[in-house]
């Protein structure tokens, strides 16, 4: 199976090359195909590692275990759907003068972005991990600015500065961890996860703690933990919808994956409860602040962005609770949130194409004006609130159960209260957009393109499927990944 690891790193690059050299029609086809192939490869790899195998290739520089596979699945899913959705999303612009150049640039960057995010879970050492995460920042910053409006440029500027400063801190954390390891591992070694975890019991406790806190602050900037979240709503609202979906479902999760690798080292060094407490604090703060901000949004893309912060808080809480059920729930939540938030952002993109506004107040009657998009956007909102039948319900329910089992009553109570607050906020806004009568008659009836609907349907299928029946393979994968977090030495 190790050929698939290499293939996963090559397929998007082929699409990049195709987009770069050929016309935009071929570029968009290549992007959709590359996304679907990557998803297929990701699923194949996940099946291969679900029982605890690790795959490695290229002299150990590329490595995948069950923990990485969870995040690989989320990225693969969104990359595939974003490729399909982009076809329809750009359809409206096709008449514009320099559309060819714009589309090629867009597809080149989109494929590069997908490629860089697929690389994150494939890294086998902290250095490569950091480089790949920084790579996602560089490429996504260009994607955020791709519309070249003033607001988009400013969002991109803010994103670059804040996220890169965060990654500077993350680099410091890697250096601290590395320096701690020199005692046990010699002066010049590769900071592979496996080796650091195996020797972590001999590390200086203070240094491991410092490294973990620095990592949570540094990578947490990209995860969107409050108070380092300020770039996130701007970038998410100004980026093109498919990019927003990738940012929210995949980029944030990828940065969280980096934190989980530090978490493993901290657990192996015997600092499990310290690390959990740090995650709980950041999780609770993010959840509380984000759910309050959800209530007062007037821009539906920003609304979804704050919902992403809230969900990242939920994931951090799930890991922080520490009970196996909660950890499994948190890992499942990575995938369910990716699918539900992808659906929501794709719906938002479709609404943006139909109504040409991001203001909630100016979107009315989406349910009748856009018969596919409206209901699916509402479904996405319901899923994000964690209603049964959606996968998000299952994962959040597991996290809450795990919290009660641990028991972490304060954390669980806050979780329940503020998730419900966000529930109210999202549903209130989404209801006003979809379930109202159409105001004015000038809104185009129907969808802009069938490709938009196809993309959304794909996501909706995953959201419902995960809620109705969890495949046995996925359960095995997540259970195994949970074991890796609980006792990394194994």
């Amino acid at each position, binding site marked *: 199976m190790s050929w698939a690891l290499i293939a996963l790193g090559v397929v998007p690059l082929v699409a990049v090359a195709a987009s770069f050299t050929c016309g935009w029609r071929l570029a968009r086809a290549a992007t959709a195909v590359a996304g679907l192939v990557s998803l297929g490869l990701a699923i194949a790899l996940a099946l291969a590692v679900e029982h605890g195998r690790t795959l490695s290739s290229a002299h150990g520089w590329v490595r995948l275990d069950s923990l990485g596979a969870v995040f690989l699945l989320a990225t693969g899913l969104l990359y595939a759907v974003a490729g399909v959705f982009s076809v329809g999303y750009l359809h409206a612009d096709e008449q514009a003068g320099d559309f060819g150049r714009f589309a090629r640039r867009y597809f080149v960057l989109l494929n590069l972005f997908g490629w860089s995010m697929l690389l994150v879970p494939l890294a086998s050492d902290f250095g490569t991990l950091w*480089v790949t995460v920084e790579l996602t920042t560089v490429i996504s910053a260009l994607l955020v*600015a791709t519309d070249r409006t003033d607001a988009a440029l400013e*969002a991109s500027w803010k994103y670059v*500065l804040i996220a890169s400063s965060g990654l*500077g801190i993350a680099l410091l954390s890697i250096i601290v961890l590395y320096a701690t390891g020199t005692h046990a591992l010699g002066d010049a070694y590769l900071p592979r996860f496996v080796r650091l975890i195996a020797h972590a019991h001999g590390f200086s406790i203070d240094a491991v703690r410092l490294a973990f806190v620095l990592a949570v602050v540094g990578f947490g900037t990209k995860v969107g933990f409050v108070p380092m979240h300020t770039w996130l709503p701007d970038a998410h609202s*100004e980026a093109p919808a498919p990019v927003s979906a990738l940012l929210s479902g995949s980029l944030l999760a990828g940065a969280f994956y980096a934190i989980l690798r530090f978490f493993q080292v901290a657990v192996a060094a015997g600092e499990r409860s310290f690390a959990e407490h740090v995650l709980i604090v950041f999780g609770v703060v993010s959840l509380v602040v984000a759910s309050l901000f959800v209530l007062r*949004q007037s821009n539906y893309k920003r609304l979804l962005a704050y919902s992403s912060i809230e969900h990242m808080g939920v994931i951090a809480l799930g890991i922080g609770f520490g009970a196996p059920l909660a950890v499994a729930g948190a890992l499942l939540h990575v995938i369910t949130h990716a699918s539900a938030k992808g659906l929501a952002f794709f719906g938002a993109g479709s609404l943006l194409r139909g109504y040409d506004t991001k203001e909630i107040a100016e979107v009315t009657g989406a349910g009748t004006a856009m018969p596919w998009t409206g209901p699916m956007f509402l479904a996405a909102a319901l899923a994000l609130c964690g209603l049964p039948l959606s996968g998000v319900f299952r994962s959040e329910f597991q996290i809450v159960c795990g919290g009660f089992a641990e028991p972490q009553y304060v954390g669980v109570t806050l979780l329940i209260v503020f998730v419900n607050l966000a529930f109210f906020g999202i549903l209130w806004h989404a209801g006003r957009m979809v379930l109202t009568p159409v105001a004015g008659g000038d809104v185009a009836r129907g969808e802009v393109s069938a490709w938009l609907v196809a993309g959304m349907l794909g996501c909706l299928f995953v959201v419902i499927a995960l809620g109705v029946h969890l495949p046995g393979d996925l359960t095995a994968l997540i259970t195994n990944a949970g074991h890796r977090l609980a006792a990394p030495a194994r």
Partner: protein
Amino acid sequence: MPVLPDWVVQVCQVLTVLMLAPLISGVIARGEAIVQQRTGPRLLQPYYDIAKLLRKETVLPGPAGLLFRAAPYISFAGYATVPLLIPVLTNYGLPLGYMGDILGGGLILGGAGFAISIAAIDSGSPYAQLGSSRLRTFGALNEPTVIFVVFVVALTTHTDLPYVLGATLRASTVEVVRPSHLLIIAAFFMLVLNETGRIPVGSHGGTLEFGQIDEGRVAEHSGPGLAFLRWGGSVKQLVLYTIFANVLLAPWGVASSGRLDDVALAIALLAVKALAIGVVVIVIECSFAKLRLYKLPEFTVASFMLAVLAVVIFLFQPGFGDLRLTVFGAAATVTAVVVLLLELGMLRSQDVWEQLGLYALGSAVVAALAIATAASGHGDSSLYVLAAVTIALKALLFPIGIRFVLRRLEADPRVPSTIGIPSALLIAVALTAFAFVVIRPIHIDTVPALPLSALPVAVGGVLVAFLLMVLRPYAPSQLLGFLILENAVTVASLVIAPGLPIILALLLLFDLLIGVLVFVVLVQYLATERTAVRTDMLDRLTG
């Protein structure tokens, strides 16, 4: 070789200072003239001036009394007494050498200045009184800095005798490169500039009234009185330079016995040290503008903050253990402190071109650290690559490129801070102290020779970089804040893990990625022809 009795050496100390002082003033005046492409006065001009004035008659203003006539001689006597107390030529106390400590010396210097100020008031001239009151006003602000510098000396040596501090430094060279000591060196140097009326505080010898602080006071004096005031002024300058060099910076090269050749060598070395300081003063005088009068307290506050930081750091640094002095260790600590000081300079600066220059300078210092690390055998030769890339990208390409883009955008070079400079410096000092508090309990088990006390300074640098980004709502300043953050991270990584290939590779990649980002984003700005690069506009997107 004959051995001089102690009292002869003591007389030599005083005579050396008295005779050498006008020469130093002359060299600085001449050097400045050369840099400014003027011919300038002769090197020995101060001697001729003094000789000429001594031959002239004294003209007294109407209201002048005894005090006015006596003041030049009182102050000169004061300035001539201080060399007895400080290690000018020897490393051991001479007769009368222990009759006063640092505070005693400061008291005598202060008393001499006080006599001149009183005389200025006695003259009845408003011009002289203005100079006098101005000097008192700003001079009073210097006192806290002096006190805190003395604190650090006292904490280091458990006394406040200048001889003992010199002996402590000689016995354990590592003391010189302790962060706290480097900071009091910086604070004391600012104090010397302030006390000798150099730019950026005052201008020497000009005739513009606003520029004068020291000169205004003596406006009414003439003849031998003026000669002694001028002479006294240069003696005071040399005394301060001597304290700076022979007590704080480089207490080496002084005689350990009264042997004639030792003493002669010490005299020569003192001249060399004083001239070296003079060269630095020339560079500063020619590269900065004088501060506006009401900005002067900022300068004084800055030196005070450095002294406070030195005390705080001193209290926390024993946690980092005794380090052995290596070239690498000294270079790392000095680099970390210099990078921090440059960041404080950027925090103070209100001008984007000045910030760019400070950033380029900081990058060059970081590159020098990389070279020193490799040369002292702590890393492999790939460090030279890092140094080369650092110089090429961060010291040359980034500053020049940013300058080019900003010129094209016609961006406003003024980047005022959102809060006052003294408050900003106070926060910066608190952040650096916080870095020491946080990192102190961390034990990183690596090579014992690693200069671990440089690590919290570098981490403090990271925090101060964040502060700069927060306090300046301007895109260029924020970008520079981010870039100096990266410099501080580089220093930190060179300190903990010098020359480890993987870290170096990461740093290089970081540089390159940042380079790509900086230019792509800046060029995008250029493409949209934005006239104002202000991030205040981001208010539109809040909520």
